[in-house]
């Protein structure tokens, strides 16, 4: 008999936790830490200059304790969850006792606690009573860190060295003063040395706010009480996660997802996952996953672990659970060394936080779907946007524009259709799209359309959200460089429980014009004289049998143009009258 079925162990653990000495201080400190993380985030949004932070919120703020354990975290996008913990460990391991008040450290190396090179983690140790108590962390995705292509997504990269500057554990401030010679070494290796420095300073400012607030908190509660409470906070989160896992039936559950390929070798990459639920523990194993690849689709283990955590945090638990080290304790992750989810050597990794992350999340969601049918969604869109760069003919400035328009849809789930136009799965809607007007003021192009694509959504009782077709036209005579780093060209968002998959991602240059070309999911192309870029991102997958979707809802979907009359008839089995009414008799016949 497993632990959970007796119930005794559960009671025992609860009793352990409820032994917490001061539940009121516990609640107060727990909430205070979240407020501190949020304040760190506001500082970052308001002081950074790259749109990727200020508009898209691609960063996260966290606080680690003296044992390098994340205590609290507020994320802009989920892909930062938990992985920053590995960066802190690397710093503490390398510097040991040589860590002092007023120091600031940086790191981005994927094989030393980073994810991909664009994610630069800034860390500031916090001392109280002469002892290292906490570390404030700000991890942020920078617009360019060097490498073969502007934006540092480099489709031809076959070594990490091709992707930009590698930063091992490094001290960049001492006594709260920047060590400029070291910092300049980083800056000179990027295409936008000014921007990266301003944005790094924004990260430091964010950590400084964290330090100030934590010290105020420790003044008030003292070292002993604070540390005791932190242990309780970990235990509380662990207990919650264990309880949730404990409710799942014991067993072994399989999931898989396929990546189109790494963009260099025309071969699909398989992500295979086996989730074993045993009592109040979960074991997640990636045995059978494809070996590491030549191109940048490799996902370092810290990134892989993050995707697993995201799968659990979105389905096994409710959204209000603390995101700290305690919550991850019950989940053990193993992955074969040298695989695409645990690469070794100097394999390139730039796509790991997008495409590969989406596929890992999908595989885990699929494995959990059988035991959590009401919580797991059908597949979301994978990334389909380009990085666009060139010289703006209006002012001769070099620019890099990220493709944050033309988003895809979310998957349907029991009781809810997927949201249209929400972006890729692993970002869970964390990225924010710029307005067409500001985008056209900022970058040299005109947008021809950005609106839902009919029938892009996977059919289902709860259908997927629509993706949005998107076309921009570049100025005549301008030379434009497009780098694609998406996926899902042949592997659409999956359907669940009889729901159908969404459409596949598609993208073209000069669609319908001379020189029309289907773009690869991953690759670079240069337009020498104006031209257009068009994308058709996938809609989300459907959940449940489309024939069970209420006919009136299907009729409204047709009236609203989310789906076509033909899809209503052929897939949903709903016949419409001349207008948009339901032809009840014909529908009954179609639905059998």
């Amino acid at each position, binding site marked *: 008999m497993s632990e959970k079925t007796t119930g005794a162990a559960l009671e025992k653990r*609860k009793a352990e*936790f*409820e032994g*917490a000495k001061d*539940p*009121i201080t*516990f*609640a*107060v400190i727990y*909430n*205070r830490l979240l*407020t501190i993380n949020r*304040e760190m985030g*506001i*500082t970052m*949004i*308001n*002081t950074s*200059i790259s749109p990727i932070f*200020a*508009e898209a919120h691609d960063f996260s703020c966290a606080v680690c304790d003296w044992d390098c354990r994340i205590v609290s975290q507020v*994320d802009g996008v*989920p892909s930062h969850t938990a992985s920053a913990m590995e960066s802190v460990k690397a710093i503490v391991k390398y510097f040991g006792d040589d860590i002092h008040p007023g120091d600031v450290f940086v790191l981005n190396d994927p094989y030393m606690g980073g994810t991909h090179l664009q994610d630069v983690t800034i860390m500031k140790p916090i001392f109280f009573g002469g002892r290292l108590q906490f570390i404030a962390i700000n991890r942020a995705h920078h617009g360019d860190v060097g490498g073969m292509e502007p934006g540092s997504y480099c489709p031809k990269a076959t070594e990490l060295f091709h992707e930009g500057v590698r930063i091992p554990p490094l001290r960049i401030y001492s006594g709260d003063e920047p060590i400029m010679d070291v910092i300049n070494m980083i800056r000179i290796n990027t295409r936008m040395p000014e921007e990266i420095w301003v944005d790094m300073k924004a990260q430091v*400012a964010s950590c400084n*706010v964290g330090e100030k607030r934590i010290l105020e908190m420790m003044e*008030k509660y003292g070292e002993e009480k604070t540390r005791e409470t932190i242990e309780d906070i970990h235990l*509380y989160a662990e*207990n919650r996660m264990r*309880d949730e896992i404990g409710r799942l039936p014991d067993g072994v559950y399989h999931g898989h997802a396929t990546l189109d390929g790494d963009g260099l070798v025309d071969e699909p990459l398989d992500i295979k996952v086996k989730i074993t639920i045993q009592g109040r523990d979960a074991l997640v194993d990636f045995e059978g996953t494809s070996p590491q690849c030549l191109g940048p689709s490799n996902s370092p283990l810290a990134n892989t672990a993050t995707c697993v955590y995201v799968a659990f*945090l*979105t*389905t096994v638990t409710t*959204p209000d659970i603390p995101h700290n080290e305690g919550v991850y304790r019950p989940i053990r992750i193993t992955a074969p060394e040298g695989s695409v989810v645990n690469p070794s050597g100097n394999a390139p990794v730039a796509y790991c936080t997008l495409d590969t992350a989406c596929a890992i999340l999908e595989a885990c969601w699929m494995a959990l779907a059988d035991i959590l049918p009401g*919580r797991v*969604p059908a597949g979301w869109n994978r990334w389909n946007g380009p990085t666009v760069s060139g010289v703006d003919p209006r002012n001769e400035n070099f620019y890099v524009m990220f493709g944050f328009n033309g*988003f895809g849809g*979310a998957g349907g789930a029991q009781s809810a259709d997927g949201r*249209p*136009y929400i972006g890729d799965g692993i*970002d*869970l*809607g964390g*990225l*924010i*799209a*710029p*307005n*067409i*007007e500001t985008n*056209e*003021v900022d970058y040299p192009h*005109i*947008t021809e*359309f*950005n*609106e*839902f694509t009919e029938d892009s959504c996977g059919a289902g009782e709860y259908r997927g959200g629509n993706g*949005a077709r998107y076309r921009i036209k570049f100025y005549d005579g301008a030379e434009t460089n497009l780098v694609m780093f998406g996926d899902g060209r042949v592997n659409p968002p999956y359907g669940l429980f009889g729901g159908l998959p969404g459409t596949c991602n598609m993208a073209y240059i000069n669609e319908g014009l001379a020189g029309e070309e289907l773009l690869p999911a991953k690759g670079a192309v240069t337009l020498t004289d104006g031209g257009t870029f068009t994308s058709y991102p996938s809609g989300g997958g459907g959940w449940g049998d489309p024939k069970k979707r209420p006919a009136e809802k299907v009729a409204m979907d047709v*009236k*609203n143009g989310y789906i076509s009359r033909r899809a209503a008839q052929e897939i949903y089995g709903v016949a419409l009258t001349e207008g948009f009414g339901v032809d009840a008799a014909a529908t009954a016949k179609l639905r059998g």
Partner: protein
Amino acid sequence: MRYRIGVDIGGTFTDCVVIVEGGVIHTFKELSTPEDQSIGLYNVIAKAAAFFGQDLRTFLGGADLFVHGTTVATNTLLTGTGAKTGLILTKGFRDTLEMRRAHKDNIWDLFLHIAQPLVPRYLRRGVAERLDYLGREVTPLNEGEVREICADFRKEGVTAVAICTLFSYLNDSHEKRIRAIVEEELPGVFVSHSSEVLPQIREYERQSTTVANAYVGPKLTVYLTNLEQKLKGDGLEKAFYVVASNGGMMTADTAIRHASATLLSGPAAGATGAIFFANMTGARNLILMDMGGTSFDVTLINDGTVTLSTEGEIAGYRVAKPMIDIHTIGAGGGSVAWIDQWGMLNVGPESAYSYPGPVCYDRGGVKPTVTDANLLLGYLNKDFFLGGEMKINEEKCRQMMEEKIAAPMNMGLEKAAAGIFQIVNQNMADAAKVVSVQKGYDPREFALVSAGGACSIHACKIAEEVGSDTVIVPMAASVFCALGMLESDIRLDNVRSFTGTIPGLSLEDFNTCIADTEKTAMEELLKEGVETKDALLERYLDMRYVGQHHEVTVPIPGGCVITEGQLEEIAQVFHAAHKRLYSYDTPATPLEIVNLRVTAVGTVPKTDLSRQAAGDLKVGDAVKNTRKLYFEEYGDWKDVPVYDRALLTVGHRLQGPAVIEERITTIVVHPKWDARIDEFGNVVMEIRKGATNE
């Protein structure tokens, strides 16, 4: 007798304030009538008229001013009962409204409910037309398509139409032409076009605001038009004004055209109350806290001026109209305390509302609330609840607190109640920090103003948490909003997108843009019945460092042609504002101007409130009795004196811990705090010198 009348519609009560020349204030209350707010309004003014021994016609006829704070627009949005609205936009961009810029409030919640678009997709229709980023025509307007769309709208029974095309803020010719065709094809339909409602870059925010305007417009039109006619018919001769989200007033006609500008009319009136209060007492830096049954609102008043934000979200819809910057959290007297299954004590956001209400109301509520905790700690008087009107079941309260909170947490009843008190105080203090610390203001330089019945029990502890050393409980705290309305000015906001950089700005273009905007602004203001001598124009710029994506709004010199020298001053003002907000500035970086804002102000003369004279009673004479209160500082109960506020007069001083009671408001003067009565009858609490505020 000369006087002004202000009526504010609240969720429960409709308040009326009459200020008589010479500064004497009279207040009246009646229950609100949500189905038709004008009924409650009439009830309360009838009560006021009776008080003055006048019939309604004489009472209304004698008023110098009638100001109204209404929640008609807000309720229409909240309840989804607005007009069937059609939207005409640039072809190819049909879904801007539903896309919501892909924003999601909580990324971790896969099942997050989002507000459905106010216009369903089949009523969002694209028309061939296009302007480029400089406002130049790329594709001419296809007028035939507009007429076809109108025909479809007619068939669908659309009663309001919103128009929003790309870059219309630079060139409104297409939108205006579309409007003309719509008015021709669909006579009687309410129409809003974005270049009138909000001529400002960012089509999602502009479109969302224009749609909200059209959606609530017809209902607001009917309500205000009928009310104004009725009031005029019943004798009102002078101006009838409505309170807008920016804390100013506007005529009913303007409110109808800018319906979306009245969406925060109610809470904005509260902020005007605080400004009034700042002017009255001379305390220029205030943080206004209003704690009701379900929510806690905070607003910051800096140097006598309320902070405005240029946009916000109302009922889940983006509205980019200048609105008073109010931060709201779900914490109030009715906030429920609960322990999750893993043992953490939480307070709110769930509320017991007024029904069933807190356990102690004995209306069937079984979940302990903040009010229950306050009762068990002795802060609330069980024998004097709502002045004794409400019977309290203390036993049941005690029993539920024991069962639901104290026993599961394995702690004493007082400890549990004190824990709830502490947690809700922390939540409220964090909300106060959002409007202060997070905006670069140091709360130590601000006094807290405590409004709302329950707030003054918590105010000292919130002050300790944020680091403020003064708490003021205003007289007439319960009709604060209606009072403030009567002392506000007419304020009409105008915005124009203007792109330019410093250095590199064409002063000629800039001054032309200012002159144009000011001309329109002044014309609008004079239409409000303002005389030229009372009119003034305020200018602001939305600016940022080149490359940034978030703007800071800064005031610029008014009443003159801007010179090179003034540009330098404007830059300095911007750097200072940026530094205050975000802790740094970079004076070497060029600046970018995004929007020009001109606010036309019609000043209304202010009342000089009468000051109270010291009474004959000694402070000790105001002590009603003593009662036991529990304080976490002592970890124990303590006998404290209870003062009757009605007997406290100017110059009285007392030491905490103490209680000051009146019918609706209870004030707890916590340990380490002293209280005094100022010349206007406000209770001022100050932390005792020598007592550290940590």
